[in-house]
Every structure is written in structure tokens, then in C-alpha cells.
């Protein structure tokens, strides 16, 4: 009986690890194939199978060429600028709104929450039809500032993360500060904002990944690809003229996902917990 049990357990463990290895393999293989191809020279790419390893793992020519062709220097500059401004903007907008919604009772409080919730139901792609005209009238086409403003806009998930966090900040803290003569602004900036730091980090990671990867609106509103490419839209350069020069394209793709990869390796756990926190109420 004992041996049977051990055998059964062994088989189960084997199946468990086999399935894990299989799905991990499935998850990485598309990206790995890109990495392999990105290191190949033109002739190597044409003559060998895609999964044959490159002869020279230090052949960075494709990366250099892709970087230049897709104007990625500019793209990284723009994306960084956008990221910084959008994060700062949305942190202020989100925390302030959450503060008011959580700390003050007033008619319309619930309605405002529902308005934000309903907004998240509206299909974003579809809205661009009419949003384009508004952006045009505001002079926000080909304007980094316009794009930043629209990216700062409605973001229900981070608002919910903040509201949840506010619920855990003891209201006695506010009251004692009021006793000491602090006004609401001071309470918010001096007491709440520092306490909110974990929530801010969480929502910044989520928002940051979203902003960095956003391409649909960037393509629509930052049409001047010479001046205003973002990292995501700079990849569009490879759509037409390069056709199937995948050694170059793959290099471009790899470059574009490097920042995400680095961020991921550095703060894996924070990303996971951020996602989980965002999903509870989302």
C-alpha cells in the first residue's frame, strides 16, 4: 500500500511539474523566438530555420539599425516624458478625488462614483470616433500635452485603490489635526498623501504599464511620427516598408519591451499585489 501511495504521489508531482514546464514554455517561446531572430544577420535569417540559434550572440547590428530606423531615441524620450507627467497628474487627480469622495458626505457623492464606473463600461475604441473631433477642436492633435491630458483622465481602478486605502486611514487622525487647527488642504498634503504611498506605488505601476503600452490613441492623436513617436507607436515604422525583415523587426520589438522587462524583474511582487488590489473592486 505504501509503495502504491508513493507511486501515485510521484506521478501527480510529475504531472504537476510537466504541466508547469509546458505552460511556461508556451508563455516564453514566442518571445524567445524573437530574441533568437533579433541576433541573426540578414543572410543567416534567410538561410536558417527560425529556431536555429544565431552564430553570434553578440551581433547587435539589428538592434542598432532598428533603433535608428524607428527613431526610438526620440520615442524613448517622448515615452519617458509622457510617463512622468501622466503619473504625476493622475496621482494628484486620483488621490484628491478619492479624498473628497471618501471623506465628505454630500449629495451626488454616489452619483459621481457611478459616473466613473459607467465610464469604464464605455467601449474606448468606439469613443474615438467622436473624441477625435473634440481633440481636434481643442488643438490637441499632434500635441504631447493634449495626449498627456487625455491619458490622465478617467481611471476607475486607481481611484478605487485610493478610496479603499482611505477607508483604512483612521478618521480620528483627521479630527485631531482639525483640533490642532489644520485646514483640509494641510490634512490632505501633510497627513494623507504620505500615508497613501503604498497605494500610490501600486496604482503608478498599473498606470505606468498601461501608459507605456498604449498605442491606439497615441497613433490617432500623435500622428507626426517624426516628432511624436512613443515607444509603442514607433514600432509602426516596421509595418510597411520592411515587410518581412523579421530580424530587424524582432530587434525593435525586443527593444520596446526591455523597459517593461526590467521593471518586472525589479518589482515583481509589487506588480502582482498591485494587480490583485486593483481587481478586488474593479
Amino acid at each position, binding site marked *: 500500500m505504501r509503495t502504491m501511495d508513493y507511486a501515485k504521489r510521484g506521478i501527480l508531482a510529475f504531472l*504537476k*511539474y510537466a*504541466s*508547469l514546464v509546458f*505552460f*511556461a514554455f*508556451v*508563455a*516564453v517561446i*514566442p*518571445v524567445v*523566438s*524573437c530574441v533568437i531572430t533579433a541576433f541573426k544577420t540578414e543572410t543567416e535569417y534567410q538561410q536558417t530555420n*527560425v*529556431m536555429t540559434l544565431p552564430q553570434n550572440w553578440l551581433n547587435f547590428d539589428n538592434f542598432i539599425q532598428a533603433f535608428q530606423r524607428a527613431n526610438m531615441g526620440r520615442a524613448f524620450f517622448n515615452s519617458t516624458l509622457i510617463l512622468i507627467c501622466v503619473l504625476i497628474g493622475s496621482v494628484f487627480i*486620483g488621490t*484628491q*478625488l478619492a479624498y*473628497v469622495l471618501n471623506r*465628505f458626505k*454630500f449629495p451626488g457623492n454616489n452619483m*459621481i462614483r457611478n*459616473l466613473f464606473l459607467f*465610464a469604464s*463600461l*464605455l*467601449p474606448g*475604441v*468606439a*469613443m474615438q*470616433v*467622436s*473624441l477625435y*473631433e*473634440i481633440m481636434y477642436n481643442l488643438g490637441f492633435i499632434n500635441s504631447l500635452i493634449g495626449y498627456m491630458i487625455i491619458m490622465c*483622465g*478617467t481611471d476607475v481602478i486607481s481611484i478605487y485603490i485610493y478610496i479603499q486605502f482611505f477607508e483604512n486611514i483612521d478618521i480620528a487622525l483627521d479630527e485631531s489635526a482639525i483640533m490642532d487647527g489644520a*485646514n*483640509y488642504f494641510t490634512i*490632505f498634503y501633510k497627513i494623507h498623501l504620505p500615508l497613501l504611498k503604498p497605494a500610490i506605488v501600486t496604482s503608478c505601476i498599473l498606470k505606468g*504599464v498601461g501608459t507605456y503600452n*498604449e*498605442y491606439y490613441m497615441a497613433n490617432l492623436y500623435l500622428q507626426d511620427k517624426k516628432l511624436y513617436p512613443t515607444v*509603442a507607436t514607433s*514600432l509602426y515604422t516596421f509595418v510597411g516598408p520592411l515587410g*518581412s525583415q523579421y530580424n530587424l*523587426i*524582432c530587434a*525593435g520589438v525586443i527593444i*520596446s*519591451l526591455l523597459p*517593461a*522587462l526590467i521593471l*518586472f524583474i525589479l518589482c515583481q511582487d509589487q506588480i*502582482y*499585489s498591485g*494587480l*490583485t488590489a486593483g*481587481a*478586488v473592486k474593479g
Partner: protein
Amino acid sequence: MNTKAVKKRRPFKVWIKSRDGQKVLVMLSFMIIPLLLLFVFTYLPFGEMFGFSFYKMKYTGTRKFVGWDNYLKVFQRKDCFGALKLSLYYMLGSIIQLVLALYLATVLSFKVKCGKLFKGFMFFPYLINGIAIGFIFKFFYTRGFVFDTVLQWCGFNLDNLPYWLRDQRINNFSLVGTSIWRYFGQNMVLFIGAIMSVDSSLYESAMLDGANKFQQFMYIILPSIRTIVMLNVILSITGSLSAFEPPYVITSGANGTGTYFVVMHNIAHTQQKVGLASAMAIILLIIIIIATILQKLFFKYVFRDAEDDDPKAGIRRDKKLARLAKRSVRAAEGR
């Protein structure tokens, strides 16, 4: 609060320095920007879109009022409403994705060698931007490239393999596959988070009672994370209706892969039939809202005692369920 100030006949300057005045001031100054953004970039375009849907119009030039014509057209044209059929593929895909994510999350929630590494590998696709995904999978599915090579390793013959993106019998499955690939890790992470919050003493007592891993999953884990699973089911069904990215970035909707939104995108931006596209958007929105309400009602009906807004009740209920589960496990063992 304004009326209060008037009643007391305090001059504005005094009032603004009072508690009430300060309150109004802070509320106004903190809410005006988010509400303005919400209005200008969400509700104003939404209203305009609703208006557009009654006109025959392009982005520029004259507009002609046509009443409900656009809505009728959406149902009459073959390429519009019919495209919603494709969302069935995506629904099927999201079910596979959820089951897969649940399985992997359950496995990875317990002690596993290199668990973090596995988790990382499976999650990373979620962080890749849409355009890059488009390129990666165009490359992946090209004849004789990555996917075909891997299948050849497994003993398949290239001649028997279909063209993954061109063959109309298979290409929607290929696209759905990319969507599963991209999101199963993210789903898994969510479920792991939920499973981690399950009281671990439950497992121990279940083990003592001789419950096996599958029973533990069915009677302890699944009931405890029901809410988040449900939420994901709802999200994935509405998501399937509005599937857009996989076909948009990989095939641009060619060869019968154009989902409703891809068709709408083309009508709006290539053909510039703004009115028709707006009507399509409104119709889908209505369908999504109805679907959401129906699902909420359905789940409410199925789990009548589930009171989501009282978390403590949830915990109590979960504990009760776990106890019941243990009992039934014991009963099963007794038989």
C-alpha cells in the same frame, strides 16, 4: 452649504474661512479637474457619438439627418452584426483561459520548486504592448516559422499543417490563442492573490480528514474565491463582445477575422462612415449593458445568499461552506 451661508448672512470672506467654507473650497478644487476630464473626454464624446448615429456623415463635409437608418443598417449589413458571431470564439477562449488560470494558480499557491520563476514566465506576456504582440504573432504563425517548427519537433509534418492566419477554419482560433497567451498569466496572478487569502488552517483540517487535492480545490478553494472568479467571468464575456486587439494588430481583420469592433474601426476610419460606426458602437454598448445586468442577476440568483457589500458576511459564509465541505468530504470518505 451655500444656503446656510446666506441664511446666516455672513459675508463671503468670513464664510470662506469657516469650516463649511473650507469644505466647499477643498471639494471644489479637488473635484473640478477630474470631473472636467471625465466630462470632456468621456461623456461629451459619448453624447456626440449618440448624436452622430442619427446622421449620414463623414468627418468633414455636410451631415444629413437620417433618423434610425444607421441602426437598421447595422442589422441589415452582412459585415456588421454578423461579426458578433466571432465573439463566440473569444468567449470559448476566455473560458479556457479561466480554467487554465485557475489550475495554474492552485498549483502555484502551494509549495512548488521554482514557483516564482514559473509565475514570472507566465505573467510576463501581460506586460508586452499590443503592437509588439502583433509582430510577435505574425512572426510566430508565419508558414514554416516558429509555431510550425515547434510542431515539427513534435512530429507533425509541415504539409499537413494549415496556414494559421489565412485558413478560415482555423485563423480565429489562432487569434484567440494569442489572447489566451497574453492574459492567462494575469488571471493566474489574480487567482493566486485570492487563494493566498484563504485561511490555511482549512487545508490542514481537510488533510486530516483525508480530503485529496481535488476535493480541497472543489470544497475549500473554489468557494472561497468565488467572487473574483465570477467577476472575471463577467469581464471576460463583455470582453469577448468587444474583442478588438488580436485581430486588429495581427490580421487587421482580413480573412474573416474581423470582429465587431474591427469592422467598426474600419467603417469609421477607412470608409469614414461616422454615423454608421456610431450606431454600431451604441448598439454594442446596449448589448454589453444588457449582458452585464443579466449576468449579475444570474449570479445573484445562483448565489442568493451572497452579500458582496458585507465582507464579514462573506468570510462567515465561506467558513460555513468550508465546514459543510469538510462534513461532506467526511461523509464521502465514510461511504
